[in-house]
């Protein structure tokens, strides 16, 4: 089933030496990709490995800074979206590109509407969509409004949209992130059908089970570069995982070594706290709704002792964001309770929780963690502004003194308190957030993606700060999309899947493989 077609002549896609930078972030650093016609090709890598950027370049949404790309042997470097569509490339984006107020048929034909006598021939559009839908097995009713569709149906519309435009090369960006297991099975059937009909499919994913399941060939990316190209039949999940994580990256080997050589903490590593033991934060049966009013956190309970790091692993979008927001006071708690230091804060606001001893490094520093146009000094008191008031006005002297002290303690560069946060590098921006949240008194820290998009030096710095805080008796809840980060820092690891803790294990007993099975829902166990 998985035998890939023998290369004949030119590959369907050949991208070489692709470079792409956004500001100071280099998303692609000499990345390459080669895909044969008639195969399902998995493009895998961790978050931020540069997969999506590479596909945006292929689809003409962004031009590469350097490098060349060929489609069916023709140089197409830097082409436009419409060139790509004309050449038969269809991209199904992670965030759907559908107009919710229009019907399925209208969305599918948009831009190449059937016309009769100057009018948009809607009946014909519906008929064509029905035929296409029938031929491909992508069943969806053409007359329904997209706003009323389930996520799985919307994705079918996205695929139909590309096929309607004659796509021969289909790119799907994390297509299963939003699907239920039966929907995933249906999708696999459709994709295999398309491949068997001569279509080429590129699947972006970071779920290894899917890769093994569906792909013929695999390209692994890491940190903007292409690491290796494998035949699915000739590899194993652990080989792919190693390539994704990368043994030869200084940062990871250091952290992996950290697990082996540094006993995380005291003698109590990994033992779940007993209920009678005083815990710094205690969460019981927490239920939280997401933005679309669906249950995103479904009865989660846990405690963290002083001097312990609980890591949450899981594929993004399984309720981690909502959990953290609910704990921080940024999202309404539907049921359950949260206690900090024994005090019930379930219905307390952000400021009151901070007073109770809660600190929070938010997952998105550009949206939540920093006010980019505020100076470093002002950002260092965001959330603490009430404490920096003197005679009714902000105490500039103390704000500046605080800034000088924190800049020094957390090595924020350049050391200019008056500089807008916008002008700092990602790593130094994150240090500002970390300094504010960890530079003062706190009992519990919520650290969400604390090292996302920052340079290696800053990662090291932030990791050591988290370890020091643990040694100083703080309770830390760490959420990270980087499994190795969770494994390197946490005493216990909880795996979150579809809003629930499906496993809680001591970090010493956890491995990427075993956690991976929980993360993808292939193995289940009631939470400890």
């Amino acid at each position: 089933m998985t035998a890939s077609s023998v290369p004949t002549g030119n590959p369907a896609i050949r991208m070489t030496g692709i470079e792409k930078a956004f500001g100071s972030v280099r998303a692609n650093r000499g990345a390459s990709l080669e895909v044969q016609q008639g195969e399902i090709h998995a493009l895998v890598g961790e978050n931020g490995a540069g997969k999506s950027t590479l596909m945006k370049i292929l689809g003409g949404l962004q031009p590469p800074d350097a490098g060349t790309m060929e489609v069916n042997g023709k140089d197409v470097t830097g082409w436009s979206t419409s060139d790509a569509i004309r050449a038969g490339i269809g991209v199904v984006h992670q965030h759907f590109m559908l107009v919710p107020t229009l019907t399925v048929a209208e969305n599918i034909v948009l831009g190449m509407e059937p016309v009769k006598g100057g009018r948009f021939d809607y009946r014909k559009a519906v008929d064509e969509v029905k035929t296409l839908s029938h031929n491909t097995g992508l069943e969806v009713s053409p007359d329904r409004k997209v706003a009323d569709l389930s996520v799985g149906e919307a994705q079918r519309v996205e695929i139909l949209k590309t096929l309607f435009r004659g796509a021969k090369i289909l790119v799907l960006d994390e297509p299963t992130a939003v699907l239920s297991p039966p929907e995933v099975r249906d999708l696999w059937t459709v994709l295999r059908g398309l491949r068997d009909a001569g279509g080429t499919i590129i699947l972006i994913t970071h779920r290894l089970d899917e890769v093994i399941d569906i792909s013929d060939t695999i390209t692994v990316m890491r940190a903007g570069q292409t690491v290796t190209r494998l035949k699915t039949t000739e590899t194993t999940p652990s080989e792919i995982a190693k390539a994704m994580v990368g043994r030869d990256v200084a940062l990871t080997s250091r952290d992996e070594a950290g697990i082996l050589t540094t006993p995380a903490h005291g003698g109590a590593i990994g033992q779940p706290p007993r209920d009678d033991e005083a815990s710094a934060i205690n969460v019981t049966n927490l239920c939280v709704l997401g933005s679309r009013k669906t249950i995103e956190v479904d009865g989660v309970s846990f405690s963290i002792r002083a001097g312990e790091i609980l890591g949450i692993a899981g594929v993004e979008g399984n309720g981690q964001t909502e959990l953290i927001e609910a704990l921080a006071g940024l999202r309404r708690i539907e049921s359950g309770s949260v206690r900090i230091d024994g005090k019930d804060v379930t219905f307390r606001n952000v400021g009151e929780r901070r007073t109770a001893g809660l600190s929070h490094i938010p997952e998105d520093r550009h949206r939540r963690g920093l006010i980019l146009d505020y100076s470093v000094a002002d950002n260092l008191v965001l959330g603490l502004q009430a404490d920096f008031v003197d005679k009714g006005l902000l105490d500039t002297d103390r704000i500046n003194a605080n800034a000088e002290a924190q800049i020094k303690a957390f090595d924020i560069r350049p050391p200019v308190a008056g500089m807008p946060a916008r002008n700092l590098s990602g790593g130094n921006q994150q240090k500002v957030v970390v300094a504010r949240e960890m530079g003062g008194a706190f009992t519990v820290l919520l650290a969400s993606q604390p090292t996302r998009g920052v340079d290696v030096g800053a990662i090291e710095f932030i990791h050591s700060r988290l370890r020091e805080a643990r040694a100083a008796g703080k309770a830390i809840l760490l959420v990270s999309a980087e499994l190795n980060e969770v494994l390197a820092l946490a005493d216990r690891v909880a795996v979150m899947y579809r809003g629930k803790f499906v496993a809680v294990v001591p970090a010493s007993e956890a491995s990427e493989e075993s956690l991976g099975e929980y993360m993808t829902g292939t193995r289940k166990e009631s939470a400890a």
Partner: protein
Amino acid sequence: MNPVSFLAQMVRIAIPYLFAATGGVVAERSGIISLELEGLMLVGAFSATIGTHYSGSPWIGVLCGILGGLIFGLVHALATIRYRADQVVVGIAINLLAIGVTRFFLKLAFASSSNSPRINGFGGRAAAHGFDNPLLWMGLLAAPVLAFFLYRTPFGLRVRAVGEHPGAAASVGVSVNKIRYIAVAVSGMLAALGGVFLALDQHQFTDQMTSGRGFIAVAAVIFGRWDPVKAGLACLFFAAAETLQIQLQGNHVIPSQFIEMIPYALTIIALAGLVGRAVAPAALGKAVE
């Protein structure tokens, strides 16, 4: 109250609203806020007066009015689309600019700061009650015709897509900016026709003669939930209330000021969602890179 004269007066009041509101609908459905309808109407009225005055033909006046609206519409489009300027600010600036420009050239052309000389118009037979004016029929047809374009043509589909989710439209190769330029240009011409009707109907241009009608049209767009036909009905409704107030004048049943408030109060109520929520096109007011 004579029903024929009531209807005739109501339609006459409604026509400028109808032109301007349909113009507002097409621009806003493409994602561009239209607070400049007032200014576009004023420019249309003035250009039509100039054209008619110098040619003697109201048809030339209509063409000049459309041209004036087109130019100001394109300025609006350039500022908001090419330069990504704040659409609310630009709308207000266009309104101020329109007042200034019409006053300046009124002075230049007719050496007056209040009004132009008398110009020709359409129809005018007393028995026809104004229904012999071709512009009146164009105004009545504007909303249904726009509805046809918006819901029954490929261009209309693209306008609606661009106003709701420009990213989705761009991802299938629809040029978002091109659609918006066209929509705003059409909006300028339509709204200007509202002013053209006013000037030709009153046989002259007077300073600030639109006196807030453009904002009633904005109210109609919102109260009509960005649908051409519903916005048109809102225009007729507002005009009916005004007609009632005029015909009841002297009775002192309700002070005229309270009748004036109706369109605005209804719009606020609609926006607050007290009588069914008015939901704007999702990408309204957002510039694209």
